[in-house]
């Protein structure tokens, strides 16, 4: 019998439906793989019973001849940013340690309704703030990948680093991620997997711990474009409980997958050719162009003149929103309370937040508070919002000349944990190619392209028009079919 943990979403779903194996067998295989992989620190808590209960329900439904859901029998990892009823939800922070929601996020509920089960809650950068998974209160996540000839622990990317590590290590066939400024795409690129951030508003934010509400968007992370299409279909949809939820139908992305790109134009933004980008990344970009040309697409140059300003604008807008969103952690309603003897309410807030937030979270709250404060609001925050408008306008104009944009996902491959901590800015620069699509709310995906000379994965990014997830997935599929990326990390855990 095939090793069930080598299978992805589609193969598991179809195998369970056909009766090649039971959902329970799949859940048991992944539960074992998760238990053996503690060295990766990908999970904050594991929930083997949740996975088994969901599997038994699917097996019973099949035996009764009922129609099975789109994710039936697929056990997944859930980023610990999604509220899960009765299961601790921490956002990888101390301030939410022990918080056990009495409700389920819309996205996770939709996945359970589609027949998926939960292997556990995945580690991440604290409050999704980070690009290397080194800001979690519950310890770093270690990538399953190693640099050739080195035993150094590598970064799985961030913030969805538990998700990327688990999927790349084959201890989960797929996982949820969230992307505020690259948090699905960058970790996917670092670990040789696929991940798509849909158009802003496709997936409900209800029950997702908020970081920057105008940017936050959930999406799937899996090992193939098909698997992402299936899982995104199960996650997306209108939700009246989210005021920014898109009120439109969810297309059947899986059924409409088509890698024939004849008649399509692929835009190459010249401003993405930035100083400090690895030569291997630039080479893979050239390779990507050739693959899409081979699929029938025409390659055209496009201009995104404000690209250089997207990242600094993001580092005003996102912290500003975070400083407001994270004001809710006050030691009163949920989470940690630090009440030194004899102090009043204000001091309790300050002590609780000092003890409960990590350094990067504090840094961003302080920046956000500063740029929103009287006297600085216009110079920083309003100016950043105007630049956001210009970045979005750049894309709008570019999409008059092309159907989808091809770019690198990251300027470098993964790096060793601890190697980028000198200066917060160096870490921020890792998201330079990912952030523009976030500011514009566009669907964007990373697909694995190749390995670099060190044996580490490199990803290519596709950015589409608003609501055109299909165009992004189709171009991603064309790359997947030509890249033939089958490399996987050697098991050391």
């Amino acid at each position, binding site marked *: 019998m095939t090793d069930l943990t080598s299978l992805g979403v589609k193969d598991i779903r179809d195998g369970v439906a056909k009766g090649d194996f039971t959902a329970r067998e799949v859940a048991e295989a992944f539960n074992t793989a998760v238990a053996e992989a503690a060295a990766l620190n990908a999970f904050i808590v594991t929930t083997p019973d949740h996975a088994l209960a969901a599997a038994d329900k699917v097996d019973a439904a099949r035996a009764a001849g009922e129609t099975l859901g789109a994710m039936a029998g697929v056990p997944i990892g859930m980023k610990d940013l999604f509220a899960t009823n009765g299961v601790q939800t921490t956002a990888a922070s101390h301030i939410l340690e022990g918080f056990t929601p009495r409700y389920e996020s819309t996205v996770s509920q939709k996945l359970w309704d589609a027949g998926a089960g939960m292997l556990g809650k995945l580690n991440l950068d604290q409050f999704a703030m980070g690009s290397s998974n080194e800001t979690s209160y519950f310890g770093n996540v270690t990538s399953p990948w190693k640099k050739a000839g080195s035993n150094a622990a590598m970064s799985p990317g961030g913030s969805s680093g538990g998700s990327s590590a688990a999927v790349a290590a084959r201890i989960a066939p797929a996982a949820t991620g969230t992307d505020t400024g690259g948090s699905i795409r960058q970790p996917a690129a670092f670990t040789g997997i696929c991940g798509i951030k849909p158009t802003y508003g496709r997936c409900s934010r209800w029950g997702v711990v908020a970081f920057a509400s105008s940017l936050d968007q959930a999406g799937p992370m899996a090992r193939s474009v098909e698997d992402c299409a299936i899982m995104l279909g199960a996650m997306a949809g209108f939700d009246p409980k989210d005021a920014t939820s898109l009120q439109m139908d969810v297309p059947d992305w899986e059924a409409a997958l088509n890698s024939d790109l004849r008649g399509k134009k692929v835009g190459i933004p010249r401003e993405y050719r930035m100083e400090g980008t690895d030569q291997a990344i630039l080479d893979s970009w050239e390779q990507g162009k050739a693959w899409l040309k081979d699929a029938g697409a025409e390659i055209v140059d496009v201009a995104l003149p404000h690209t250089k300003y997207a990242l600094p604008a993001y580092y005003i807008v996102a912290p500003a929103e975070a400083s407001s969103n994270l004001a809710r952690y006050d030691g009163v309603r949920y989470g940690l309370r630090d009440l030194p003897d004899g102090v009043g309410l204000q001091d309790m807030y300050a002590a609780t937040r000092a003890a409960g937030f990590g350094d990067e979270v504090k840094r961003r709250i302080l920046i956000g*508070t500063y740029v929103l404060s009287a006297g600085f609001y216009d110079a920083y925050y309003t100016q950043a919002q105007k630049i956001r408008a210009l970045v979005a306008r750049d894309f709008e104009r570019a999409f008059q000349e092309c159907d989808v944009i091809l770019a690198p996902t990251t300027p470098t491959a993964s790096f060793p944990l601890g190697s980028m901590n000198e200066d917060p800015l160096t870490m921020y620069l890792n998201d330079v190619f990912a952030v523009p699509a976030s500011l514009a709310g566009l669907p964007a995906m990373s697909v694995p392209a190749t390995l670099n000379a060190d044996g580490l994965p490199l990803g290519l990014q596709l950015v589409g028009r608003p609501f055109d997830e299909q165009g992004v997935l189709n171009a991603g599929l064309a790359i997947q079919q030509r890249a033939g990326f089958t490399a996987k990390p050697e098991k050391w855990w």
Partner: protein
Amino acid sequence: MSVDKATVAKIANLARIRMDDAALERMVPELNGILQWVEQLGEVNTAGIEPMAAVIPNTLRLREDVVDADPLTGGGRQADVLANAPAAEHGFFGVPKVIE
């Protein structure tokens, strides 16, 4: 623009995060590094550009004007609301005594 220790102390107070002297000292150059880097946004001519707050034009929807229109977010869930409170007492959130 750059910040000094007194300014960081003021921001930390506004943000309700207690920080001792050592933490403030450490934060000053880190925040200044970030602020100097975002200064480059001043180069961009944004005359006549409307600030963008939302990427998809959206109007707030109105729900039915009925009690508990959505049972998930409706009322009558006191026990659930208090379940994670660090100090729930007598059906309320408990806080230290406030004397003005």
